[in-house]
């Protein structure tokens, strides 16, 4: 067991327990806080995968924006969904069966794939990695079209969210 493996197993255990708490917690605010712990664990995985930029994005966008948005929404709609009573619907065992079947299917497919247990190749060019990604996102023969499409989607989503959530009476 190397140090990396120990870190991986520890963070994976914490992340999965936090994930299970997100979907089973009775109190929605607690769910949102567990979600923040899950997202932080995934940021650690990005660091382990030599993708430090994505760890930063994960903290800024997911923890800084999306999780806070969840907490806002949970607080704005707090009165109706009291924290007592069942938070899951009556078919929860069916959902568990579907999730377990899905996991079994994914694992079965992965085990039969010959690249399943590959080790990471050595990184040759760590310093130019980020600038290479930045250039690829704006160069016309690479990913400029999906990148611009994502920006249009974000603007459309923002306008839509303002329009839908805005108070029409004022």
């Amino acid at each position, binding site marked *: 067991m190397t140090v*990396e493996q120990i870190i*991986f197993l520890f963070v*994976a255990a914490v992340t999965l327990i936090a*994930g299970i708490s*997100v*979907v089973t917690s009775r109190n*929605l605010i607690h*769910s*949102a806080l567990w*979600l923040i712990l*899950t997202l932080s664990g995934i940021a650690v*995985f*990005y660091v382990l995968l*030599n*993708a430090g930029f*994505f760890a930063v*994005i994960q903290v800024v*966008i*997911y923890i800084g924006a*999306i999780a806070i*948005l*969840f907490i*806002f*929404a*949970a607080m704005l*709609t707090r009165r*109706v*969904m009291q924290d007592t009573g069942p*938070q*899951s*619907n009556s*078919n*929860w065992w069916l959902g*568990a069966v*579907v999730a*377990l079947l*899905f*996991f079994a299917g*994914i*694992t079965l497919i*992965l085990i039969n794939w010959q*690249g*399943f*247990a*590959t*080790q*990471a*190749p050595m990184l*040759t060019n760590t310093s130019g990695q980020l600038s290479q*990604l930045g250039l690829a*996102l704006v160069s016309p023969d690479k990913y400029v079209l*999906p990148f611009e499409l*994502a920006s249009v989607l*974000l603007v*459309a*989503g*923002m306008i839509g*969210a303002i329009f*839908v*959530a805005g108070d029409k009476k004022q």
Partner: protein
Amino acid sequence: MIPLSWYLIFAALLFCIGIYGVLVRKNAIAILMGIELMLNAVNVNLIAFWRYRDPAGVAGQAFAIIVFAVAAAEVAVGLALIISIYRRRNSVVADDINLLKW
């Protein structure tokens, strides 16, 4: 060193937790949280495949950035819809929102 299989199994587990949350939770905001878990599992897979299969290229990273943008847009619109429904019908329980059900 960590083999690729560990990341893939972890991402599969997280994805299935997300599926369970989407299928089972009553509160619409909690359903969106399950979707976030699933999107994160997909992103871990994308970055892991980039690192283990094609570390010289940028395809996996570019794909992951698009997923980030889509997740942000999705959660903004989703929460706006939930808040709008809450204003009109005073409920965030997904079972109560059955106007289009036949």
